[in-house]
């Protein structure tokens, strides 16, 4: 088995709200609720596309994004995002968060001069890495300026219809 070769016997899916779901390896196609095991099937066909069959019900699923060990999944019209962690990487997360502890700020700056068309976040909005923060018109194109990090928006100097120079700060994001 490939799994024990690497010495990983358990995986954890950590939700963005820090809920933890653990699965032992090899992964079973069954989920235990109370005393009973219910079979989970991942299927796909022409009519429905990809879906999960569970307890005689079909749930539409779609993988919106996956990046490294981060997965954004649309399940029954609701999006969830998870990071899949190994026992060691989970422990590492704990170690690092206790070591770090310090608030880090990331500035979103205008990569080129242009005009702000739309500001998509407000103070207090939470953003994911890659999420558009501001629409900047430059080169006759509307460019999405994206958040470089996951975090909370702390300041939004960008205003719609304003012209900005290269390097102007559009938003400040507290790294989470």
């Amino acid at each position, binding site marked *: 088995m490939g799994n024990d*070769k*690497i*010495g*990983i016997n358990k995986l954890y899916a950590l939700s963005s709200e820090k809920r933890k779901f653990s699965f032992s390896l090899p992964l079973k196609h069954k989920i235990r609720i109370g005393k009973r095991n219910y079979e989970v099937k991942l299927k796909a066909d022409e009519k429905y596309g990809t879906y999960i069959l569970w307890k005689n019900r079909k749930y539409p699923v779609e993988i919106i994004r996956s990046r*490294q*060990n981060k997965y954004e999944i649309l399940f029954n019209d609701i999006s969830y995002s998870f*990071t899949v*962690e*190994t026992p*060691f*990487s989970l*422990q*590492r*997360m704990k*170690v*690092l968060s206790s*070591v*770090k502890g310090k608030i*880090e700020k990331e500035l979103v700056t205008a*990569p*080129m*001069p242009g005009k702000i068309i739309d500001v998509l976040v407000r103070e207090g909005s939470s953003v994911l890495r890659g999420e558009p923060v501001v629409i900047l018109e*430059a*080169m*006759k*194109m*509307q*460019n*999405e300026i994206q958040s*470089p990090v996951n975090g909370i928006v702390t300041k939004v100097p960008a205003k719609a219809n304003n012209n900005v120079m*290269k390097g102007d700060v559009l938003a400040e994001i507290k790294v989470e």
Partner: protein
Amino acid sequence: MDLSGKSYKAFLERQEALKKQYSPKQAEKQHSKGKLTAHERINLLFDSGTFEEIDTFVTPADQPVEFGKVERTYGDGVIVGHGKINGRLVFAYAQDFTIMGGSLGVVHSKKIAKIQEMALKMGSPIIGMMDSGGARIQDGVASLSGYASIFHNIIHSSGIIPQISVIMGPAAGGAVYSPALMDFVFMVNHTSYMFVTGPNVVKEVLNEDVTFDQLGGAEIHARKSGVAHMIYEDEENTILALKKFLSYLPSNNVENPPVVPDDGSVPDICEKLRDIVPDDPNKAYDVKDVIHLVVDRNSFFETAELYAPSLVTGFARLKGKTIGVVANQPKVLAGVLDIDSSVKGARFIRFCDAFNIPILTFEDVPGFLPGVDQEHAGIIKHGAKLLFAYSEATVPKITIILRKAYGGAFIVMNSKNLGGDFSFAWPSAEIAVMGPDGAVAILYRKELAESKNPAALKKELVKKYRDKIANPFIADESGYIDEVIDPAVTRKKVISALSALSNKWVRVPSRKHGNMPL
């Protein structure tokens, strides 16, 4: 078997001492920093039971001068050896921070040099896992010349075997040039750093406060400096990704890249491709949507994703065979070429060329980024690197023009007369000397100035320009591209083009080396 003989006794004692040296306590210390030990890293990387360590018991050299203490340890803080990764021979060295901070002493450097030379002789990839405090001060100039020989070996092997470095701890001072010289650099977020001079020196010299992460963390190198190509949140993901990454690369520059059996699950005709490029030429889209639909399912492995994202580079497979993908990204700064993206593209193309990996280019580029900034920083010479790399490459080169292909950028992005083998264009392509607005403003300056309704006239002229000039059909009819194709058949076209090109050979004029505009 009786192992009580005298010679066996010494053997067993040594084994026992080695075990003590790599104690659980040492491992725990490393774990408490969120890092794995060198052995654990090696075990994760190689197929189980295939790694053969060499020079396990070498010990540090005696010091010519008494200064500081050198621990008499086995291995001198680095593990070197060979093993199989997904069944293929790969050489590796892993610095061990638990032993004298992984510092590079003479013996340490000799071990690395030895394995480098073996990898080159065998024509096998080599991986360096760095976790070191730097040159061993006690070893003095001998340690420095150790670095020099390691660097020399890397340069010697460059373009012959793939060399990949993984930064899993500090890499400071001279040590940073090892990864910089190698082909690809992986970094682990928050626990690895690279800098020539550390925060303390920066503080002393410039009086600037800066943290390790801010100065040389993985994010900085992936995003701003471009030194790191791939970064991950933890070591396991880094190593898993590295294994996947290796599967795209050949062992050396004579072999072809490895092949994954094609399961035929991706249809050659994909109608979804028709819907990606928006009708409005000023609207952005994600070129990765195009890439994912053209290449084998889930086979796209992006390199340097965070650096200069207006140009996408990465490896993928077509019918199981490795290709290199270069694509303008309209979603970021309209896909414009700037200094960073030109350099990123050029380096990627040169890697592909060295290792016989065909290059597939997706083109939608409005031009080079204008501005004082870029001109003064030398976009001319940096843009020339991309031009040089494309033109110099002798591997199969195919271009798909998705939309904009204007001016100098059209020439640079693998145009036919630059040596491109096949050039296809989607019907949405606009191939011209410049964009409609600019062209109309120059050609009809007088008419526009005299017009009562310049906006309406301009709109009309822009439409006329699009109809008459900025389309793919003129280029098609005059042979500057090969064919205007239905986006849905892109995959099929590329597969058959690559199959036609599989035996491509170009005689390169014999010379020492070209003079790339560095």
